[in-house]
């Protein structure tokens, strides 16, 4: 009998009435993910989730890139909390993993050093005239999808099963470092065996791949990626992961971090162009999805409305395995039905 460590790390996840905070970069790379999350919560689960028009960055990119000091970051986060307070919500849900990690860090700092909380309150009041309440619950959207994974399953049109063979699809789950590596008790399943995405894959019919570099970082590392000269270092980390997972022949990758999902997708193009290597048998690469996209696809949402055509590794091989319906002619149609310009084809990766 295998031990299930994650049972010992069950965090509290609020059941309803969420204040949603969007990510700085996700809408560019995964344009349908956040909308899909809101749709899933509102339409499928009937939850109250508020998407404020006044929201802004948490400054995490600056903080981790060493250009924004801690007190500034905590004040910026305090302003986000004040928006939540103003809207009458108490459960904070940041779309971004780094945002989530940073908020947990800020709350922990306030708890252990109450003077920093007072300083923050004062700074926010002086700068904006605003006050705020500390959230009662902070959960990442992947926590919420995890919490309702079985409820969603009953509404799903598809499962993670290959249509032609009945074989469960093999999924690689990749957890953002800031989800639980800094505060293991704040993540479902802890830091070593996080269950937040694995639980979704298992519940939705798939199989989780446990490969040697499962816990390794994708290599984003802020200061490393942000300086072009250091990017070789960034890509090497993803490369290490691909080399390690490839023998397991994964059908897809899902991630709960904006940076990870982007890198694991885009670096497959870079590595293919650099070394001519792809990590699946057909030369198409391993499709990478956000957990919202995966949930949306299985719920039967239109793949093109979810924005999966924006990914570097194209999703069709995955859609065909499950038998998810899509119209190839609609792939590059704009919102009002006009045909958009098609992207250029890479020289190695097949699309």
């Amino acid at each position: 009998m295998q031990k299930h460590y994650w049972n010992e790390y069950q965090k509290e996840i609020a059941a309803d009435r969420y204040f949603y905070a969007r990510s700085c970069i996700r809408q560019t790379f995964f344009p349908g993910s956040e909308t899909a999350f809101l749709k899933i919560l509102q339409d499928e689960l009937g939850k109250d989730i508020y998407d404020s028009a006044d929201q802004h960055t948490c400054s995490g990119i600056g903080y981790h890139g060493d250009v924004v000091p801690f007190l500034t970051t905590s004040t910026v986060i305090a302003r986000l909390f004040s928006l939540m307070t103003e809207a009458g919500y108490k459960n904070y849900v940041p779309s971004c993993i780094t945002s989530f990690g940073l908020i947990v860090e800020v709350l922990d700092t306030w708890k252990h050093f109450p003077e920093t909380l007072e300083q923050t309150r004062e700074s926010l009041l002086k700068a904006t005239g605003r006050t705020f309440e500390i959230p009662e619950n902070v959960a990442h959207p992947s926590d919420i999808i995890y919490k309702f994974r079985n409820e969603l399953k009953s509404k799903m049109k598809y499962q993670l099963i290959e249509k032609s063979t009945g074989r469960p699809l093999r999924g690689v789950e990749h957890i953002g470092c800031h989800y639980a590596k800094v505060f293991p008790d704040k993540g479902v399943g802890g830091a070593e065996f996080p269950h937040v995405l694995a639980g979704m894959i298992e519940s939705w019919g798939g199989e989780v791949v446990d490969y040697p570099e499962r816990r390794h970082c994708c290599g984003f590392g802020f200061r490393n990626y942000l300086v072009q000269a250091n990017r070789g270092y960034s890509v090497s980390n993803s490369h290490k992961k691909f080399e390690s997972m490839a023998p397991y022949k994964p059908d897809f990758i899902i991630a709960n971090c904006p940076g990870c999902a982007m890198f694991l997708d885009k670096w497959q193009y870079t590595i293919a162009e650099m070394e001519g290597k792809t990590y699946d048998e057909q030369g198409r690469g391993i499709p990478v999805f956000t957990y919202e996209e995966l949930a949306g696809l299985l719920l039967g949402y239109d793949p093109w409305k979810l924005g999966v055509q924006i990914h570097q590794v194209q999703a069709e091989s995955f859609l065909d395995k499950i038998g998810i319906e899509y119209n190839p002619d609609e792939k590059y149609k704009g919102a009002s039905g006009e045909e958009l310009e098609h992207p250029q084809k890479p020289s190695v990766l097949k699309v």
Partner: protein
Amino acid sequence: MINFGYTLNKSGAINLVEADLSLYNDLMKKVPSFARCIGCGGCAATCAARQHTDFSVLKCNMLIRRGEYDTLSKELNKCMLCGKCSLVCPRNVNTRAMIIQARLLVNSFSKR
């Protein structure tokens, strides 16, 4: 001056008598758990940055302890602050805080 075709070799030894340990002492005040390191290397073994660069939390720790600051700033900048090292440390050294504080101290040190 005569060129003999050879020169006097500089000593490669760590000189603890002449070493400037002010950064070490300052860091010790900021991150007291720093003192507890036993050099097991758990931090370096789990480090993502370690896999592709010669960055090592343990090595930074040792450079600071011996007053060898010349390469320190460059070394410290390779850390991605993911925090995995803090997670595995058997002595519960706050390694992440150590790196952050050492960066700040190195900056002010080089300005002096």
